């Protein structure tokens, strides 16, 4: 049983308060992704769990044991680093065996375990090479092999894929996911890439300025963001934020001259604010070309003039202006053919989010 519990973690680097009170309980076997923009404290948090940094306040418990005072080697965790951290003076075999030798495992057993780990990652043919003779993807596999060979109770990943090119990154992502399925060890994974977070995580912990902004299952966070920051961070292209007004009875959102009806089911929770300024958050995929005669609950019609089109092949991204800000809609490939085209869009108000501009919290 390797659950990880952080409570009241603080960390300062001189004047910088990098982690400001993080409480987090990670159950055994879960794949948790710490994600956030650079400087949000996610790597620091991971390093505190590994024992590479010491928390200024708070406790770290791994498997029910408080480990604050333990050096990294006594925590029995494995870590994969951003730049792979392969020892350049050792062959691949010795790199993978390094941790086992440090723990005085018998040579015969080391050989077996190294071969098994190498087999899992299909790097069995590279064992006699030096790290500098490997490609980036191969190095990453060796780094992961070094982690899994140890049978550590907890795996930590610090942006392991950020140095790989796009294609390799996709491959390694599924590799890591498969690994988690096979080993079902608790894994904590740090990344700044929201796609990695969405695809890998059982649970995403979104950090901002040293605090947890929101955590939950990927789709929960995506569909029910708590704040404007979360709404904007997840999703690509990012959510559009349009200044708007909510009517007193919460029946209508007013953007420019357009009146967008709020679905009846959502009005109750929004009423009581009175007429007020709000930010309307629309994901590109919340808009589509409006088909004549279409009548769907919550989908409202909006006439726009397209300024810019960016076809990707499968989709076409169309930019138009709403209340003075550029808004991107994700349309079918041939929905729009040239700039300055006038178009009617159907806006799905069931999925749109409304944000209080004063607090940036989602209403």
């Amino acid at each position: 049983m390797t659950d990880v519990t952080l409570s009241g973690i603080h960390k300062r680097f001189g004047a910088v308060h990098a982690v400001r009170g993080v409480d987090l309980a990670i159950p055994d076997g879960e794949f948790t992704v710490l994600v956030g923009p650079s400087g949000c404290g996610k790597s620091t948090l991971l390093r505190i769990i590994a024992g590479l940094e010491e928390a200024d306040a708070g406790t770290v418990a791994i498997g029910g044991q408080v480990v604050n005072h333990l050096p990294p080697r006594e925590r029995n965790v494995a870590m994969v680093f951003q730049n792979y951290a392969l020892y350049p003076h050792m062959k691949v075999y010795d790199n993978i065996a390094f941790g086992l030798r440090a723990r005085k495992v018998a040579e015969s057993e080391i050989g077996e375990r190294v071969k098994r780990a190498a087999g899992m990652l299909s790097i069995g043919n590279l064992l006699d090479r030096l790290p500098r003779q490997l490609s980036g993807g191969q190095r990453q596999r060796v780094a992961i092999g070094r982690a899994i060979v140890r049978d550590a109770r907890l795996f930590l990943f610090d942006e392991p894929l950020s140095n790989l090119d796009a294609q390799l990154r996709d491959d390694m992502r599924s590799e890591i996911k498969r690994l988690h399925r096979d080993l079902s060890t608790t894994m904590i994974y740090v990344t700044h890439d929201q796609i990695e977070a969405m695809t890998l995580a059982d649970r995403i912990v979104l950090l901002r300025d040293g605090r947890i902004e929101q955590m939950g299952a990927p789709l929960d966070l995506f569909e029910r963001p708590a704040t404007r920051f979360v709404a904007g961070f997840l999703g690509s292209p990012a959510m559009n934020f349009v200044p708007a007004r909510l009517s007193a009875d919460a029946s209508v959102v007013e953007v420019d001259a357009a009146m967008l009806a709020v679905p009846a089911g959502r009005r109750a929770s929004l009423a009581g604010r009175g007429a007020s300024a709000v930010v309307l958050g629309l994901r590109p995929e919340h808009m589509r070309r409006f088909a004549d005669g279409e009548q769907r609950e919550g989908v409202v019609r909006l006439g726009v003039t397209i300024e810019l089109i960016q076809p990707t092949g499968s989709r076409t991204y169309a930019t138009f202006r709403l209340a003075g800000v550029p808004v991107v809609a994700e349309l079918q490939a041939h929905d729009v053919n040239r700039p300055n085209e006038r178009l009617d869009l159907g806006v799905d108000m069931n999925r749109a989010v409304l944000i209080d501009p004063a607090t940036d919290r989602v209403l």
Partner: protein
Amino acid sequence: MTQTTTSSTERLVAGRGIGGFGERHFKYTVLAPAIFILLLIGLFPLVYSLIVSFQRVTMMSADTSFAGFANYAKLFADARLWESLLHTAIFAAIALPLELVLGLAMAQLFLERMPGRQVFVALLVLPTVISPIVAGANWRLMFDHRFGPINQVIGWFMGEPTPILWIINPLTVYPAILICEVWQWTPFMFLILLAALSNVDKSLTEAAEIDGASQWRIFTRIVLPAIWPVMAIAILIRGLDLVRLFDIVWSLTRGGPGTMTETISYYTYVQGFSQFEISYTAAMAFLVVALLTVIVTLALKRMGIAR
């Protein structure tokens, strides 16, 4: 229950930190022996000198009574001391620019790749790594007015034998020492400047060339500023060596003729180990240390060497 666990852990953290005593103090454990030796051999003598410089100790009498600033006052009246400082300044003021300019010119010559460059560079390094004592001795042999090759070569150019008494004649003794000094340390400048020049980003000079700048302008406005940080360190290293100049004077002229080529280090040595004016030597040593400390501090500050 949870409350007590937390607070006891916090005490644990505050008291031991990651890894407990051994690893917490690792950084001091590995540093301590070196610092101990540096304090013993570096700091202790200075403190000792400082104390003795306020006493009246000589070879003859171990008079440790307090002399106030008497020894320091004596420094100001000691003409031979000021002359030795002047000699040191002259050596430094001539040798340093010469080494710098010659080194830079040589670096330019070898900057462009050419087959066999490695061999040339490897040979040019040799003077810098041999002992200054050997260098001085060897040049003394070379300058010998009868058996030395220098006068011989000069004779060829003059068309008649020219018996210059290099290290005996007051007019030629300075050039003799300077030639030896510049011979030994120009390669040092050359090596460092060659590396610095090679590291200058080619795109900078190429951009300037496209902008139509002259070669001279490119050199003074782009190349020189780019290599300045390295040049500054080379100047600092050599400058300090020159202030401490001792070895080649010892083996080439022994401060002579008379006391004409005594440097400050040389004169301090004479006071200490020929005359055994212990307290006075201590005061003088302190003057040298103070002088160097000022130079080093100013230089380090100006150059921002302390990354």
